[in-house]
């Protein structure tokens, strides 16, 4: 019987690299002499951490898009919500070290004359609560949104556009200072997490390791889902939605499960992202960010999980490099990269590599055809 192995070759290599990084990066940063060739300087640690957080987001996106054919242009929203949850916790940790020395209220509330903490900030002084919210809120939003959209059979580009509308609306909402999330400035100037100052190299190293581990776990989870029978149903939905319905699967429920799961993973990614970059603000909701996330997946290779993560790292590393090396021209480079990928390696880096190496593993789900809408079976009413 052809079972998909939970971990195939590519997956093994991927996990190996990620876990190795989880150990080596902190080690080299903390214990290697700064002048040694392999020493990873302080500024790199959070940077790499950021890449891995993005990689996790890309993974989540690939789950819905690569396997379920749902092109979400709003996944940045789930990422940002997770980030805000963590940000609110970090805000509360500042305590009386804010400029106004107010024990309870964050600075922005003090000078906007808030009298007491709004109800939705309660509980965020507990780390576990923040973590819970970081997963639950994106999950609930995705569930509610998907419940509406999938059962009324909104598909293809229509779905993509309303996901975009969703994140756009959230962005506008969070920009409003009256919302009580710090408006445009968002949440920043964090001091410490679970008692450890964020300035400490050790804390950073730990955060990085945590992110790497989260990425590995995220990969295993996603991999488990797509290699399960549910995974097969989901791919079936992607390729022939109405056929799947006609053999008795209630498609909307399957979409809903995957979409919600993906949103939760995105939330975790956001929560890991914030303490490492040190700020979360509404522009994380900007539709452009969500589109970029889609592009990471495409660059790396849709429907391969590993590729998604790889793409995220490649594109963002490229961004870091370009914005420093050729500040006035980097957009040409980035734009060129996107155009080139789509034209030259439509299957993404991973796809291209597999083709070059001529690897054709039965156990691998072939990369999906690049379509927004799942192909509906050609069984339209024949009048």
């Amino acid at each position: 019987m052809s079972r998909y192995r939970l971990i195939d070759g590519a997956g093994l290599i991927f996990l190996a690299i990620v876990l190795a990084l989880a150990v080596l990066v902190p080690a080299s940063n903390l214990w290697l002499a700064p002048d040694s060739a392999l020493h990873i300087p302080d500024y790199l640690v959070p940077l790499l951490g950021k890449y891995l957080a993005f990689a996790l987001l890309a993974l989540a996106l690939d789950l819905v898009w690569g396997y379920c054919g749902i092109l979400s242009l709003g996944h940045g929203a789930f990422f940002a919500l997770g980030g805000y949850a963590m940000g609110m916790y970090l805000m509360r940790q500042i305590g009386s070290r804010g400029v106004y020395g107010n024990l309870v209220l964050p600075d922005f509330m003090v000078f906007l004359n808030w009298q007491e903490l709004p109800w939705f900030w309660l509980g965020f002084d507990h780390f576990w609560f923040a973590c819970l919210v970081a997963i639950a809120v994106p999950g609930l939003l995705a569930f509610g949104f998907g419940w509406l959209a999938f059962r009324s059979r909104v598909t293809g580009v229509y779905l993509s556009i309303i996901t975009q509308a969703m994140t756009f609306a959230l962005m506008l909402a969070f920009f409003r200072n009256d919302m009580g999330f710090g408006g445009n400035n968002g949440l920043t100037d964090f001091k410490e997490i679970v008692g450890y100052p964020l300035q400490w190299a050790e804390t950073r190293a730990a955060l990085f390791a945590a992110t790497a581990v989260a990425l590995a776990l995220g990969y295993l989870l996603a991999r488990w889902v797509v290699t399960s029978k549910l995974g097969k149903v989901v791919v079936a939905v992607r390729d022939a939605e109405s056929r799947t319905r006609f053999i008795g699967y209630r498609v909307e429920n399957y979409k809903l499960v995957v979409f919600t799961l993906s949103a939760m993973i995105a939330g975790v990614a956001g929560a890991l992202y914030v303490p490492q970059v040190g700020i979360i603000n509404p522009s994380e909701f900007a539709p452009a960010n969500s589109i970029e996330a889609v592009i990471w997946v495409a660059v790396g290779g849709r429907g391969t999980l590993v590729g998604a993560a790889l793409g995220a790292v490649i594109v963002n590393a490229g961004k870091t490099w370009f914005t420093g090396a050729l500040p006035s021209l980097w957009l040409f480079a980035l734009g060129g990269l996107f155009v080139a990928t789509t034209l030259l390696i439509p299957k993404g880096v991973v796809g291209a590599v597999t083709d070059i190496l001529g690897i054709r593993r039965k156990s691998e789900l072939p990369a999906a055809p690049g379509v927004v809408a799942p192909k509906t079976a050609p069984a339209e009413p024949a009048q």
Partner: protein
Amino acid sequence: MTIGGEVTSALLYLDDVSVTFDGFRALNRLSLSIGANEMRAIIGPNGAGKTTMMDVITGKTRPNTGTALFQARHDLTRLDEASISQLGIGRKFQTPTVFDMHTVEDNILLALKTDRRPFPVLFSKRTREEKERIDALLERVRLTASRHRSAGELSHGQKQWLEIGMLLAQEPKLLLVDEPAAGMTDQETADTADLLREIAKTASVVVVEHDMVFVRDLGVKVTCLHEGSVLAEGSLDAVSANERVIEVYLGR
């Protein structure tokens, strides 16, 4: 003609069903009933409403008026595709539709009659009787050899059969088959006819077909649709002798 008397015994019972697509009447007060383990061939020129009828039965299209009952108790006009399929109505599309990206056996596996809810599916492990049933089905549709190939690589005829195999995997009580012989070699056509007859022993089968040779092969009761309602019903000879049928087909 009235078929009221058969309501109780009929497996599928359509009465006075009408469907209009912005102005155009696809089905016009159609009445039809299929008995248990009956095989029925539906013929009719293009636009006669054959496919629309199947859409109504499978819940893809909601009729404007009329009743559609399954086993005399399930109102098909209220259920969605999934639940209708779970009632035991399988449908084969005009052009074969299988999951190209999956292997042949996975196509069958997905179609097996099992719990369809996401979480049970997520945690389900393949049991040995599932394995046996898959082997049996593959035998039956003669795809054992290519069980590990991905369905996309199959020939047209093989896809037709794989799809039929998938329908069988659902253990349906009623099978709707849309032009199974289309694009098949004569040999394949004959084999398909045999297969369908065999299936009809355990389930009712409704075959929509243009290919008169094939219909004759099946040698079953024939219903001729025209402009969304039943024009004639009976043995193929009787039907093809019918004045109006000839008129419709030969447009005299």
